[in-house]
């Protein structure tokens, strides 16, 4: 298993892939913080939120956790980036034909799939760290320039940064697993990314518009709650349990298909 993980990490070490992945993550971290601070400057208020984005209030922004609030605010955006790269890494094995070589070398296919998930989770940890670093690098000067009160931001710093990182990391991994599952089933990164983005921007948005239908169970909402450490609507524990349920369901489906399907690509 260790060999399979190291093998997968070697293949994931493609400079262009990592630069694009981390670059997009850094870009979203910078963008969300710039937007948040711009709206809140001068005592203004946030817009109601766009699909995949949940803005904090001014009070939340100026609280100790405000330093890292950008991570939770754009967790769905980070999630879509993660989903995309997990899907790309999974589907490229099929599109390149590498799957033939991999399965011939390691016929215990569940090991290949598990190793891929573990390796991608490790790279996702690095991506989460990039997001956290760029979040801090942007929000500090932006908040200072906009006149926001940042006096509380040093309070309980390690806990604030650590929990924000961990919550975002869990959410990103779940998004990633969704990408891996769809890419395994569809054998196509394009299909997986289209479904992921389409779901977040269209399906989830439409369900939320239906007043009589509860939306706490929706993937984006659930993972947004995980990334935020819980919300008023759904606690962190409930959100995490639901997210892990999604992961287990997806991995079982992908695992069964991956293990049993003929490799004809």
């Amino acid at each position, binding site marked *: 298993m260790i*060999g*399979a993980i*190291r*093998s*997968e990490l*070697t*293949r994931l*070490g*493609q*400079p*262009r*892939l990592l630069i694009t992945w981390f670059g997009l993550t850094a870009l979203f971290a910078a963008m969300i913080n710039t937007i948040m601070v711009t709206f809140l400057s001068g005592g203004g208020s946030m817009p109601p939120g766009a699909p995949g984005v949940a803005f904090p209030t001014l009070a939340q922004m100026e609280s100790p956790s405000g330093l890292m609030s950008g991570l939770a605010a754009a967790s769905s955006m980070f999630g879509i980036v993660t989903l995309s790269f997990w899907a790309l890494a999974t589907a*490229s094995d099929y599109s*390149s*034909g*590498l*799957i*033939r*070589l*991999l*399965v*011939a*070398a*390691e*016929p*215990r296919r569940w090991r290949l799939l598990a190793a891929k998930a573990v390796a991608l989770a490790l790279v996702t940890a690095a991506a989460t760290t990039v997001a956290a670093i760029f979040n801090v690098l942007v929000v500090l000067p932006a908040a200072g320039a906009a006149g926001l009160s940042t006096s509380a931001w040093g309070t309980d710093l390690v806990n604030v940064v650590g929990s924000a990182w961990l919550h975002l990391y869990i959410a990103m991994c779940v998004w990633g697993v969704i990408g891996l599952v769809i890419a395994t089933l569809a054998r196509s990164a394009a299909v997986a990314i289209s479904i992921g983005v389409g779901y977040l921007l269209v399906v989830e948005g439409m369900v939320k518009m239906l007043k009589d239908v509860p939306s706490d169970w929706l993937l984006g909402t659930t993972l947004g709650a995980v990334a935020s450490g819980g919300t008023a609507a759904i606690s962190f524990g409930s959100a995490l349990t639901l997210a892990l349920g999604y992961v287990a369901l997806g991995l079982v489906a992908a695992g069964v298909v991956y293990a049993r399907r*003929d*490799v*004809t690509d």
Partner: protein
Amino acid sequence: MQEDRVSIITTAGLTRRFGPITALDNLTLELPSAGVIGLVGPNGSGKSTLIRTLLGLIRPTDGTATVLGSPITSPAAYAARVGVLIESPAFSSGLSARANLVSIARLRRLPLARVDAVLTQVGLAGRDREPVKQFSLGMKQRLGIAAALLSDPELLILDEPTNGLDPAGIVEIRELLRDLGRNGRTVIVSSHQLSEIEAVCDHLVVIRFGKLIFSGPMAEMMKRTREHIDIAAEHDADMDRLQTALVADGWNVTAVDDILRVAASVTRAAELNRAAMASGVTLRRLELAQDNLEEIFLEMTGRVDGELASSRAAANGTVAA
């Protein structure tokens, strides 16, 4: 090569259907260990399906098979002892040749020293830091063979190993395969290059429509060759007249491109020349020849493109691959 050695691969009634298509049709064969084995058949004959089935990539609909003594239902039992190049070489194009091999070595838990060894073996030692996307087809092919050799396998299965190589590269790889076969490895080469197969293989397997047509030593196959005499009239305009006259005289004559091929042994060459002269035609060419593997192959499998034949057969509701 002796045929009483232990079988490295056995199949018994191996069948694989894809919907209405029968890719492998009750295939039963035994392949000897050590040496180079040619696997040939027209397009769509079931070669790739057979290889994939033996490697555990696809499951048979019916029948059984063993590889290195283990059933194909447990490919993990023999995967470490088998090296493969299936269809085109597949790699992460953004990675260097070395990184790709390191990735496979790690998956197979092999020492990284093997990477250098196989890079040297296939002649890529100086190019190993370059990204694979910059490689020519021939270099990718060499890298594919290197990947197959990484585990120093007992059994090597190579699909079109010389595809994309230049003539010098083909000779080089041919020598490599011969050496591997001589040194106790078993190398199965699937190829459309019948001259390659003829040059390098000790044993031959021919399949068509998923059925076994021939399996045996190459020497036995070559016994099927027939002698013939190729002739051409001095003037092209006389070719039809010459053919008509010879056929009337009882010769078995076939027009092939710009010559007439007469099914006759070398001992009848003078008689044939006299017959031509008697019909008033002077020969500018009289050449004694023997069928090569390609001729025998075409005779056995038909002269129609395999995939076209398959699709026609499928359309007619008959078995095809």
